[in-house]
């Protein structure tokens, strides 16, 4: 129901503002509450300093990190900083919580501004007292005592409960509905407009009872498998054009790839597939909407409060200024809680009921009506000389997008292309988005070529890498992992992701006729580690989340419950070793996403080494 143009416009504005040096921060010291139209604000409030940001904390540690940044430059303890997040009436629009931007952009902006207010410049890393330290998560005590308030814990006194009627099929549209019986019930509000039906009542039970009295006719379209809907992609696809005014350029090329492929002594072309997968944040989305006259307040738990504000305003036909979004901490986001959906539903019902209304999605609604990570079809063709050195490289991604397209390798002629196709079902952002698919394809293809030329996978990669930091990551990893002396079923993958350099190593073995992961190792260089403890937590979490998509996760139109959708559990986690290269003097890279992108290719390459069979589709053990 949300408008995808709003998302595109919002992301482009955000990108251009940051590109044009708009990361500067306005300081309102010592007056609280003054408005500034640029990102991030700080104010003195009694004994504390309040830092205002539209970013939210969903477990990645942004609240603690931003407090560290301000504390460092103010010369005060972290406990003297209160970070006010996600409330559109109080914070500036400094962009959504996505693309691992808090570390590389928000932190420097905060530091620069605070330092300037004191007539100085940010402290050099050698003098850091708070940054670079493993400062414990400021929410820790609240989390372990059950006192932490999540979006779903928010209650508005007297709010009604809302439920929404859903079609039986994912593409179903409302044809007609008889809502009279439901409307007659005391205390029940029914909204039936624009093909959408919702019900509000005192409790969820009463709302459901009323909803069950509604006779709705929906169009009957069977939910066809994603791959069936993807079959015509290559005929339907729209070729990318160069556009550098966007965070993820859809076409990155150099030289003459077609000519170089034509001249190459040894060509190889391979195709890869990654399915749709569901974020499955443990907390389902919910929202409470309340109208006061023509002004709307919505409490929710979304990653991009200002984008949600635009989408809600548009859907309700009011101005953005009339909408106030308060985004509370969600129990997990992973890119799945960026757009307005449940907020619009609650707002429609609240307007009709003349009362506050709360809507909470069930797990089934999450699986069926939230967007999922796009499926991807990828074709890579490379041309090498007789010795195996790749000169020409063409990488096409159909449907999933451009993140992670530019290779970390020094190919002379290359073209990396994100082709647009019709989405089979509702699809959207997901931690690292298309980078996971693109790295799976690229690192699998590199491995295939290494095998073809009978080269060691690490030596082969190093031959194509100019970046000294990535070389070091690979070399250190090989040493730590015990490569090449390691067991038979070992694989590796490496990349440069959002300015971070990383490599993952995996060892596999057969057990009872089935492959098993024996151990894994990740080496990463994210520049200066601003909070090493939290960074390691993110590295481990990203790797483990990546195990699901690599091994067994696949969303289908039939996915309705957590029992039917397997995500990693304790027993799925092999021994994992993490190595962090901490470069104090180097600009920090965001690391919320990078660790997830190499899990699948590292394991796929290990399985090839183990079995001789190349798996070009995810999930690998599905």
């Amino acid at each position: 129901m949300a408008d995808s143009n709003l998302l595109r416009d919002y992301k482009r504005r955000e990108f251009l503002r940051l590109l044009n040096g708009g990361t500067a921060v306005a300081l309102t010291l010592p007056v609280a509450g003054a408005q500034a139209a640029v990102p991030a604000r700080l104010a003195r409030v009694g004994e504390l300093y309040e830092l205002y940001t539209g970013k939210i904390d969903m477990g990645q540690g942004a609240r603690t990190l931003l407090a560290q940044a301000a504390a460092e430059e103010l010369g005060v303890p972290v406990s003297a900083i209160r970070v006010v997040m996600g409330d559109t009436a109080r914070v500036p629009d400094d962009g959504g919580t996505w693309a691992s931007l808090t570390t590389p952009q928000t932190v420097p902006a905060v530091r620069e501004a605070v330092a300037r207010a004191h007539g100085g410049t940010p402290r050099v890393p050698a003098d850091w007292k708070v940054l670079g330290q493993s400062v414990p998560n400021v929410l820790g005590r609240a989390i372990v005592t059950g006192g932490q308030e999540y979006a779903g814990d928010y209650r508005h006194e007297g709010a009604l409960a809302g439920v929404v009627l859903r079609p039986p099929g994912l593409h179903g549209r409302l044809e007609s509905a008889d809502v009279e019986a439901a409307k007659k019930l005391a205390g029940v509000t029914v909204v039936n407009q624009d093909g959408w039906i919702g019900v509000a009542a005192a409790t969820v039970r009463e709302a459901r009872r009323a909803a069950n009295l509604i006779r709705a006719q929906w169009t009957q379209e069977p939910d066809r498998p994603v791959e069936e809907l993807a079959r015509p992609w290559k005929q339907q696809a729209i070729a990318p054009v160069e556009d550098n005014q966007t965070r993820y350029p859809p076409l990155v090329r150099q030289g003459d790839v077609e000519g170089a492929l034509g001249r190459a002594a040894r060509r190889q072309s391979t195709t890869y597939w990654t399915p749709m997968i569901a974020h499955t944040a443990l907390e389902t989305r919910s929202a409470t909407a309340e109208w006061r006259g023509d002004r709307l307040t919505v409490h929710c738990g979304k990653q991009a409060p200002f984008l949600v504000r635009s989408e809600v305003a548009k859907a309700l036909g009011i101005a953005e200024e009339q909408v106030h979004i308060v985004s509370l901490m969600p129990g997990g986001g992973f890119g799945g809680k960026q757009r307005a959906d449940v907020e619009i539903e609650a707002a429609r019902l609240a307007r009709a009921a003349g009362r506050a209304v709360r809507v909470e999605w069930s797990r089934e609604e999450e699986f069926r009506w939230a967007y999922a990570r796009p499926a991807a079809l990828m074709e890579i063709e490379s041309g090498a000389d007789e010795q195996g050195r790749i000169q020409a490289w063409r990488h096409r991604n159909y449907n999933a997008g451009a993140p992670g397209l530019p290779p970390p390798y020094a190919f002379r002629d290359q073209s990396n292309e994100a082709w647009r196709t019709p989405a089979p079902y509702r699809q959207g952002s997901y931690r690292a988005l298309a980078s996971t698919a693109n790295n799976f394809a690229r690192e699998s293809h590199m491995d295939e070529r290494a095998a073809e030329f009978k080269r060691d996978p690490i030596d082969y990669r190093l031959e194509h890498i100019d970046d000294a930091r990535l070389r070091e990551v690979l070399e250190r990893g090989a040493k730590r992992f015990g490569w090449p002396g390691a067991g038979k079923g070992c694989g590796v993958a490496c990349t440069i992701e959002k300015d971070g350099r990383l490599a993952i190593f995996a060892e596999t073995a057969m057990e009872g006729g089935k492959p098993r992961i024996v151990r894994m190792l990740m080496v990463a260089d994210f520049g200066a580690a601003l909070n090493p403890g939290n960074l390691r937590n993110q590295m481990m979490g990203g790797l483990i989340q990546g195990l699901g998509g690599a091994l067994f996760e696949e969303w289908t139109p039939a996915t309705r419950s957590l029992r039917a959708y397997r995500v990693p559990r304790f027993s799925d986690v092999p021994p994992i070793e993490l190595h962090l290269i901490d470069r104090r003097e180097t600009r920090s890279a965001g690391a919320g996403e990078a660790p997830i992108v190499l899990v699948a290719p590292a394991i796929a390459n290990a399985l090839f080494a183990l079995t001789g069979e190349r798996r070009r589709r995810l999930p690998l053990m599905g």
Partner: protein
Amino acid sequence: MAAIELTVNGRRQRTDVPTGAMLLEVLREGFKLTGAKPGCGEGACGACTVLLDGRAVKACITPALSARGKQVVTIEGLARGNALHRVQQAFLDAEAYQCGYCTPGMIMGAVALLDKNPQPSEAAVRQALEGHICRCGTYPRIVEAVRMAARETRRG
């Protein structure tokens, strides 16, 4: 609607239970104890775990009526004043969480495990908590926290 009596975090309580209500609903909506979290509605994620007469149960699939006359302990009932329960303290020391949404359920599951098996092996910890999902993937730190808490018992 049926009226039941039960003990919640050491206090005798009387409450009306809507027909078919699960214990999770009564705890969260009735007693405003929001530490136990809804996650899947089918007992598959463990976020709603509480102790019922000392046993870890999934409150989202435990009928509220089955708690009649019993002792319920939630995450809010573990600490004694400012002193955290050793399992809470271990989770805090190991920073065994990211978003923390699964943490109350994880801690309750671990408390139930350590009551039965004060010195669990790593494998026993994993097995006991297999029904709990941490979507942020902090599993290794959780195992470490539970074993830290076990060492604390031995010392204590």
